[in-house]
């Protein structure tokens, strides 16, 4: 037996056409329809093999998610295969998704027969020969790049969950990521996959499923935080011959990559969650709306759907229980606003992705006017564990109103970037300093941006705020989908506000006036802050800027109150939180004409240090406006009137000779 779609013997039967209701149970427990010791052993040994528990050859597992590939995992795999041939070692090379610790990719795991699985990090192609020599030939731990063992801690290696990056995490949604092979349904089954669906379809009524989800207190992980159980219940009560289920994987939020990672590393989990949801609300057609910018995620998902269909887990009359479900992938076409549910529906229908006023909510009238439930990828991934552990058990994790865990994409100026899953209620500071390892290069922490363009920047004095929907809202940020960007002292908050406004302004669909025109005006005001006015009218300049700031606040309030959809309503958040917490910085820009972070280029002056400059001429050649003059071999000068403050010279100088004030 090589995989689960082969049958153990003639007594067993299961195909998509003639489904058997015990199929999933058989995979996880052994044959039920006949009591045969041989078959039982065969299935259990297959399961052990797939879980890498029983094997005679060494197994090498490479993290091949997008972050791994971007760090060179493809090349690493090639080199490993070549090197194995040279060493004449017969080993199995497998790939897995992303374990979350993206900062130290490429990650390679090695599992020797009879020993624990050991993870190594930063295995670049150059290191491969030495690495394989140590691990496979000498059978020792490769200490230089050791990450941790998946077994018990010993004197050679700590357990991977005891190293700081993982120690404070609680993995429920990401438990399989970076462990299992995302291309293999057999591995997922062997790790207990589809058990929750099996339980639901055989033993639970739709009402019971919804009740369980309601008890768990699960709330939408896409940002809004609407109780999932309630949403399902509303859809369940609708009477319609056709209902739809949509998985929102249009992760347009810049700085967030949770959905991508989850879909790439554990696509079956998301599908299982969708199957349970579809069963609960009575939908027979489901869509996954995924960004086209995530080609690998789409590939893995499509493969997963195909495999599920081949195994008879998706399709008509699943497990002979009369429940049918078909899942289709719809590729997004690059519009941030399509993350909004009504815009997403419009996009699936082949229209421009523009939101419409609610009510009616999609649960009453959604796709093609039929009741539709839309949930985020992470929400669906939470469903199978809730069913298995029970709603009450799940509700024990987290705070009073926010249950469970939340996945964050930790990035920006922080040592350990990557994907982290933390229990609700942990403080922001713990995420930044305990898990993230603090700020690199000895810089000072300034703020954390949470919730993307809809969220806000949280300053240092609020760093002890717990992570939950209400607390974050109170301080002017928002849970959002899970972008978590750490900023150090070199980040200018005016510039960050400008950045988000530019983004929102470009992505505004243009349907309602407050968002279309208001964000444009706001951006203009913000852009004027660092800009120089026409020279000579200094007094007026100050006044105009000051007036602009007053309008900014007013505009922000109007946009917040009158926009049609969530995008517009939350668009002013980055500016408002900036004005609230970093007012001195705005004032410094306005009155002192200074940017202490050194980001707003218009406010800087560049000069060359005579003593440090060697006259190599590198900056002179790089300068696009010919603002640098000087003889070769002698110190150069910057002509201030020509300089456009692009900072290119600073980046190119090898002698650190350019001063910025």
């Amino acid at each position, binding site marked *: 037996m090589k995989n689960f779609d082969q049958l153990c013997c003639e007594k067993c039967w299961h195909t998509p056409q003639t489904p058997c209701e015990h199929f999933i149970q058989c995979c996880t427990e052994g044959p039920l329809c006949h009591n045969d010791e041989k078959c039982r052993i065969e299935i259990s040994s297959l399961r052990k093999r797939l879980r890498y528990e029983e094997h005679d050859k060494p197994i090498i597992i490479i993290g091949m998610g997008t972050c791994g590939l971007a760090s060179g995992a493809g090349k690493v795999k090639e080199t490993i295969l070549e090197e194995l041939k040279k060493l004449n070692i017969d080993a199995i090379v497998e790939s897995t998704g992303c374990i979350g610790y993206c900062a130290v990719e490429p990650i390679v795991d090695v599992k020797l027969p009879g020993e624990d699985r050991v993870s190594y990090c930063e295995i670049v192609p150059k290191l491969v020969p030495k690495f394989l020599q140590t691990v496979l030939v000498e059978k020792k731990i490769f200490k230089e790049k050791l990450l941790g063992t998946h077994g018990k801690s010993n004197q050679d290696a700590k357990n991977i969950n005891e190293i700081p990056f993982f120690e404070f995490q609680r993995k429920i949604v990401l438990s399989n990521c970076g462990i299992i092979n995302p291309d293999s349904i057999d591995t997922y089954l062997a790790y207990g996959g589809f058990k929750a669906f099996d339980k639901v379809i055989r033993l639970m009524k739709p009402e019971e499923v919804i009740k369980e989800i309601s008890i768990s207190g699960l709330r939408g992980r896409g940002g809004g935080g609407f109780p999932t159980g309630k949403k399902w219940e509303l859809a369940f009560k609708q009477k319609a011959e056709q209902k739809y289920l949509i998985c929102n994987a249009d992760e347009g939020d810049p700085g967030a990559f949770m959905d991508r990672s989850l879909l790439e590393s554990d696509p079956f989990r998301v599908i299982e969650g969708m199957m349970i949801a579809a069963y609960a609300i009575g939908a027979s057609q489901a869509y996954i709306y995924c960004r086209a910018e995530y080609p690998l995620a789409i590939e893995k998902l499509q493969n997963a759907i195909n495999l599920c269909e081949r195994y008879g887990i998706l399709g008509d009359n699943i497990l002979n229980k009369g429940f049918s479900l078909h899942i289709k992938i719809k590729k997004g076409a690059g519009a941030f606003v399509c993350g909004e549910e009504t815009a997403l529906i419009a996009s699936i229908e082949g229209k421009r992705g523009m939101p419409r006023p609610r009510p009616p909510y999609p649960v009453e009238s959604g796709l093609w006017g039929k009741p539709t439930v839309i949930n985020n990828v992470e929400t669906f991934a939470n469903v199978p564990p809730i069913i298995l552990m029970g709603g009450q058990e799940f509700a024990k994790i987290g705070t009073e109103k926010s249950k469970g865990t939340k996945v964050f994409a930790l990035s920006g100026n922080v040592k350990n970037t990557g994907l982290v899953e933390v229990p609700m209620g942990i403080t922001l500071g713990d995420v930044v300093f305990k898990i993230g390892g603090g700020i690199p290069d000895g810089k000072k922490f300034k703020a954390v941006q949470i919730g993307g363009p809809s969220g806000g920047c949280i300053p240092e004095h609020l760093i002890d705020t717990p992570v939950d929907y209400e607390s974050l809202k109170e301080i002017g940020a928002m849970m959002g989908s899970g972008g978590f960007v750490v900023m150090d002292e070199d*980040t200018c908050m005016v510039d960050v506000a400008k950045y988000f406004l530019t983004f929102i302004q470009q992505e505004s669909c243009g349907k309602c006036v407050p968002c279309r025109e208001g964000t444009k005006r706001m951006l203009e005001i913000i852009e004027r802050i660092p800009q120089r006015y026409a020279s000579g009218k200094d007094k007026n300049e100050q006044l105009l800027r000051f007036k602009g700031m007053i309008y900014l606040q007013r505009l922000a309030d109007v946009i917040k109150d009158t926009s049609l959809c969530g995008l517009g309503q939350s668009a002013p958040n980055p500016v408002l939180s900036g004005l609230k917490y970093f007012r001195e910085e705005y004032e410094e820009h306005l009155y002192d004409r200074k940017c202490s972070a050194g980001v707003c280029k218009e406010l800087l002056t560049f000069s060359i240090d005579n003593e440090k400059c060697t006259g190599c001429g590198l900056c002179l050649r790089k300068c696009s406006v010919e603002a640098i003059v000087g003889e070769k071999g002698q110190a150069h000068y910057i002509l201030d009137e020509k300089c456009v403050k692009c900072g290119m010279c600073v980046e190119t100088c090898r002698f650190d000779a350019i001063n910025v004030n």
Partner: protein
Amino acid sequence: MHEKIFENYQPNDRSSLIPLLQDVQNIYGYLPENALRDISDFVGVPLSRVYGVATFYNQFRLTPLGKNIIRVCRGTACHVKNSANILYALENELKIKAGETTRDKQFTLEVVNCIGACSIAPVILVNEDYHGRITVKDIPKILKKYQTIKKTDKAEVTE
């Protein structure tokens, strides 16, 4: 060339408009006018609507692409890690602005919102290859890599 695509779709089904546009763009690298007309006929949606959809989404383009596409990520994490400078340096190096194609049709420079590789910011994507944690100094080297590929290709052809 694009007529074959229609075989995979049902006519007069509005929901297949965006997938059709995506498939056509996969063939040509952009959306030629005659293809838009054909799609309009096939889907049964007025050409003006098709144009409306094609211009609404960032993914679609109505002008041809260069041989190599450089996508500069401008997500939050990349922004914090100074991707504006990377973009500026690329614009300088290629002597074009974002959204344009070089005159020799070698490079198209594009800006994308986020490619979801925030942990290795700043990132640029050249064709299908990710280049993470880059600095301005790396840019000439990266560009050269793709230019030399072009030269060897030519050499092989002449041989």
